[in-house]
């Protein structure tokens, strides 16, 4: 294995996860047990106004609810986090409940820091620079993708730098994650597919990352197996609670895995496309993933052969490279089959823009964990060109 020579790691994640159909109804009980009395819900206006999800949360919180911030935006900016912190401060919040996809959860993580530490979110940029526990946070994901409910990072778009940056700290793990499959039945097919492929990318990338270790490998491999089997089922039958629940578990496992092993080049490109051209994070990861796999085949064939097995490919008699290439081919077919046929051109990306995108991707925090050093921006240009 790639880590046989030097195995040492620290493994950390959100300490408690409650999973089950209608388990969101227990939120008030959990919050009470945690001693919370003034919870502010962090969500977006779509979920607040066009779905019943917020009402369900309000109902269970009862008198513990101190306010609702509906200013979450996709790919949250530093300013949106700062605005949320001002609002939560005005309500006297002692805790935060994020309700939504990765954007809501990441926004709440950012607010949690500003409420506790003061200043603005970008004042706290860094890794493990936070010195103590932050504002208590219960995360309720409504997509099955980012796994942010388990991770130690918040991803922040900085419009000035036109780039995503991170804050990473063991103090950013939410205190509790609530996974309720009934929250996902209204997630539209395109978002179901795209967020599911974000989880797939986490699971695959942590197999090859330079920080990988046996625990993240195991979580990631099982997540790949589940996503292969259940993501198509969610698309065929959106209210299939078994399939929705399995996808939540897979996203949760993949998030746990990558929070410890980190991602690599695929996410570096996806972050850049999200920040510069508004390509949805999961969609970008999905369409790039097969090409990233081929790019790393020379150093990671053994790991991709394991991915092949998890995807249900019969690899008997194949060399690692044959099996790995088969995994990349099947990944490409899978992405197409679930309807993610987007091209970068659809988002206004032109050939002329590729070099600039590659330069930004070269500075994304995830790229340094790639299984071989990516020193040449031209390598990235060539991958991006394949999906232009």
């Amino acid at each position, binding site marked *: 294995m790639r880590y046989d020579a030097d195995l040492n*790691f*620290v493994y950390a994640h959100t300490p408690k996860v409650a999973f089950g159909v209608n388990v969101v109804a227990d939120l008030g009980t959990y919050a009470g047990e945690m001693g919370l009395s003034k919870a502010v819900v962090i969500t977006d206006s779509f979920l607040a106004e066009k779905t019943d999800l917020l009402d369900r949360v309000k109902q269970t919180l009862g008198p513990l609810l101190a306010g609702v911030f509906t200013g979450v935006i996709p790919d949250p900016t530093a300013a949106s986090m700062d605005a949320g912190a001002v609002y939560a401060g005005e309500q006297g919040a002692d805790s935060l409940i994020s309700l939504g996809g990765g954007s809501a959860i990441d926004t709440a993580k950012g607010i949690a820091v500003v409420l506790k530490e003061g200043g603005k979110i970008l004042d706290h*940029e*860094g*890794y*493990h*620079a936070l010195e103590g526990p932050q504002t208590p946070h219960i995360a309720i994901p409504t997509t099955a993708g980012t796994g942010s409910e388990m991770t130690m990072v918040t991803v922040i778009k900085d419009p000035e*730098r036109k*780039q995503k*940056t*991170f804050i*990473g*700290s*063991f103090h950013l793990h939410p205190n509790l994650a609530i996974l309720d499959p009934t929250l996902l039945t209204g997630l539209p097919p395109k978002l179901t597919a795209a967020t599911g492929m974000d989880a797939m990318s986490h699971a695959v990338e942590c197999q090859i990352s*330079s*920080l990988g270790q046996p625990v993240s490998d195991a979580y990631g491999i099982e997540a790949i197996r589940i996503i292969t089997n259940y993501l198509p089922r969610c698309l065929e039958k959106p209210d299939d609670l078994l399939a929705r629940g399995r996808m939540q578990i897979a996203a949760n496992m993949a998030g746990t895995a990558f929070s410890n092993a*980190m991602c690599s080049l695929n996410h570096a490109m996806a972050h850049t496309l999200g920040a510069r051209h508004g390509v949805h994070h999961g969609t970008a990861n999905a369409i790039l993933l097969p090409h990233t796999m081929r790019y790393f085949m020379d150093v990671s064939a053994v790991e991709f052969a394991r991915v092949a097995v998890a995807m249900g490919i019969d690899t008997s008699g194949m060399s690692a490279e044959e099996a790995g290439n088969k995994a990349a081919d099947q990944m490409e077919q899978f992405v197409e089959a679930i309807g993610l046929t987007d091209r970068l051109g659809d988002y206004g990306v032109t050939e002329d823009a590729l070099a600039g995108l590659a330069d930004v991707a*070269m*500075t*994304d*925090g995830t*790229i*340094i*964990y790639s299984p071989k050093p990516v*020193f040449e921006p031209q390598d990235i240009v060539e991958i991006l060109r394949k999906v232009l």
Partner: protein
Amino acid sequence: MPIDFPGEEWTAAYQNAINTSAEYKEAGKDWTHGAIAFVVPKDPVVGLEEDTAFILELHQGECRKAWISTVDEAKQQPFCLTGSYSQWKAVMRKELDPIKGMMQGKLKLKGNLPIIVRFVKAAQVLVELTGSIDTKFLDE
């Protein structure tokens, strides 16, 4: 003669090692992002009685100034790296990969991450150069 780490003499030796490194001159030639500070919290067990910090003022492949500072001054720099004495020792002896150490929370980085990533090669050279100093560790 081995030089005590940390200390003024060691910091000067580090500045010298950086300024005589052709590799750093090249890798850091576009660096215009200010100083990098290092903090080593006190650890009486190894014989470090006070919190200690030093700052490197780096600019375009050169270390213009290096000095022992207070922790407060260190924390005000654009980049500040904090690690226990034993972690720094492990880094200098190449027993701890600094990137891995950073992810595992053994080294704590305050500052703009994309800039550090852009200069990851320069950062690696800086770390390697610590190994070129004949260092005497307090607990040896």
